[in-house]
């Protein structure tokens, strides 16, 4: 009689033989996985990191990228950057939003308002950015990922790997180079030439990106955290912080969902054990 395990082993070997034979274009690098505080089932957001990431977003990204699903009030929510309500009110008041019900059609933003977009329409955004459209950042961290071949994705089910988005964004922000490296080819093998007005990025698909390198060392002045710790003012640090922040923007209730998940799992495990005993006791006499 064939054991099911044998079948699965055969299937796995079969899949393994067929495993990734991906054509790698020269000069293109895959995003590397990073350590994130919110990774894994026990992971939670690092509040200081989210506050720093918000600063990067606000001072750099937000000048071209929108985040239409992010409301000011979200910034005060638990499990996020958790600014105080006063801080958020003050922050919102620095922005103007459109409101047809007030004279002049503009008013100061309130915490309930959403983050104002830098451009009114996609056309305006393209006009201002050399034809490229800076994507909305609301769920960007979940709309990007890095691909895991077999058997990596099998393990992902057990490690609950969901950080492909921040991994990709972090890698992209660190993959610029001023000169096109020697020997770079397109996917069809022809020599790569950088189009006018584009920038070379080793992680971006096609390697030519419309976004100029947005970050440089020392560009953003971080305030020290409440406990006095400081972090290096480097592109590496900025990109990690902003990637973490974007993950929070995309998945604001992550901490909450996980803590609910623990309670549910604990209940289910206990309940399953009890139901097993019930079933065993009941069936003991049947044979």
């Amino acid at each position, binding site marked *: *009689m*064939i054991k099911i395990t044998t079948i699965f082993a055969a299937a796995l070997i079969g899949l393994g033989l067929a495993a990734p034979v991906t054509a790698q274009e020269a000069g293109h690098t895959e995003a590397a996985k990073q350590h994130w505080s919110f990774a894994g089932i026990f992971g939670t957001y690092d509040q200081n990191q989210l506050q720093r990431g918000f600063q990067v977003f606000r001072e750099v990204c937000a000048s071209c990228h929108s985040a239409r699903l992010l409301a000011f009030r979200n910034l005060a929510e638990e499990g996020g950057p958790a600014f105080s309500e006063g801080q958020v009110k003050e922050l919102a008041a620095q922005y103007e939003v459109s409101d047809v019900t007030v004279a002049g059609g503009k008013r100061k933003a309130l915490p309930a308002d959403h983050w104002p977009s830098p451009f009114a329409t996609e056309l305006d955004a393209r006009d201002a950015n050399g034809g490229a459209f800076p994507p909305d950042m609301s*769920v960007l961290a979940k709309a990007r990922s890095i691909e895991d071949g077999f058997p990596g994705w099998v393990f992902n089910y057990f490690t609950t*790997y969901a950080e492909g988005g921040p991994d990709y964004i972090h890698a992209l922000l660190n993959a610029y180079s001023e000169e096109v490296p020697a020997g770079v080819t397109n996917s069809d093998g022809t020599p790569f030439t950088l189009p006018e007005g584009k920038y070379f990025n080793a992680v971006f698909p096609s390697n030519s990106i419309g976004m100029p390198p947005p970050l440089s060392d020392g560009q953003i002045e971080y305030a020290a955290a409440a406990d006095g710790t400081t972090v290096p003012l480097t592109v590496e640090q900025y990109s990690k912080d902003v990637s973490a922040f974007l993950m929070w923007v995309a998945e604001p209730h992550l901490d909450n969902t996980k803590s609910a998940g623990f309670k549910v799992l604990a209940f289910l495990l206990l309940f399953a054990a009890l139901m097993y005993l019930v079933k065993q006791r*009941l069936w003991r006499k049947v044979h």
Partner: protein
Amino acid sequence: MSAHESKYTPANPVLRWVEDRLPILGFAKSTLVDYPTPKNLNYWWTFGAILAFMLGVQIVTGIVLAMHYTPEASLAFDSVEAIKRDVVGGRIIQAVHSTGASMFFFAVYIHIFRGLYFGSYKAPREILWILGVIIFLLMMATAFFGYVLPWGQMSFWAAAVITNIFAAIPIIGDPILQLLRGGFAVDNPTLNRFFSLHYLLPFIIAAVVFLHIWALHVPGNNNPIGVEVKSERDTVPFHPYYTMKDFFAVVVFCIPFAWFAFFAPDILGHPDNYIQANPLVTPPHIVPEWYFLPFYAILRAIDFNFILDSKLLGVIAFGGSILILFFLPWLDTAKVRSGTFRPAFKWFYWLFAVNFLLLMWYGAQTPDMKVVGPFTVADVSKLSVAYYFLYFIVILPLLSRFEKPRPLPNSISEPVLGKPAQATT
């Protein structure tokens, strides 16, 4: 519901008054409590209850989601995000519903493959099996319509690709395509009708499930040794024996379900579906959800013309791969039901199962990817498609002529009481 009518008389006079006019309590008692069930069912048989539970979960979470969802092309994407962000518990309800679809299909595949192994489709259970295939078809339609609703890039392009399949049908193809889409392209009318159908079909599934259970209760359950119940000694009442065993199985099933729903709600989905639908940008690699991959691989494998155009042939193979299940009760000519007692069948069966997993994997790859030596996914998937159909139209009809089954136990009680005959896989 069947031969085992109960003569149930409630003790309570009010209930007795009701029972005299509408014998619903007696009906419930005879079908859910007294129903004599073979005592040797293994855990593969608990997936029926698991599926009933999943249908309930999907309907309840779906109704709550529909209260907050906006089926309008420019608002749908943001309304799903609003559910996750602003509805109390919305992230969890949405995650349970979307991962629930995957768990539902996982359970239905186990249920189908259990039936295939133990010959549950054979007489007198042909109609039970056919109703099951109908439920599977309805589930596929429902899942497809549901996947379109968040209106992300994969939603949109899945709708475009799948509706386009119908265009391959001669003469009536184009009218069907336009009827499905509500126009020449996938747009707001498509979203509206898909939402309407996505809400309707689960209730039709529930109705067919009722018929499925009715058809189950006439001949009674098949069982791992495939020998019919001979006496009362072979059975136990459904309650409490199977209600409690099924309950235990449902709770265990909920553990991986909760794992996905709470800790990795998007791991079974595609990142591109977090980009709002855009008719002007085609994603580089359109893939259906994992549970459609084997059938998608069959559709794609037919890339050659043979009398008919390859596109129409692909659609015929795709449709045929499911429709052939309707004829299975008459294609398998073996008198012995359970695969346990069929030494040759077992090999073909497990090869069929592995082949199905391979098709699933092929469906997720690009057709020009090299698999073995110079052979690409497009090449090797043809072999898998060939085996898929050979299993049904050649192997099962002919196998019984050559195969010598192992001796069957006299009854369910015999192998359980005595020593031999492993009754389970």
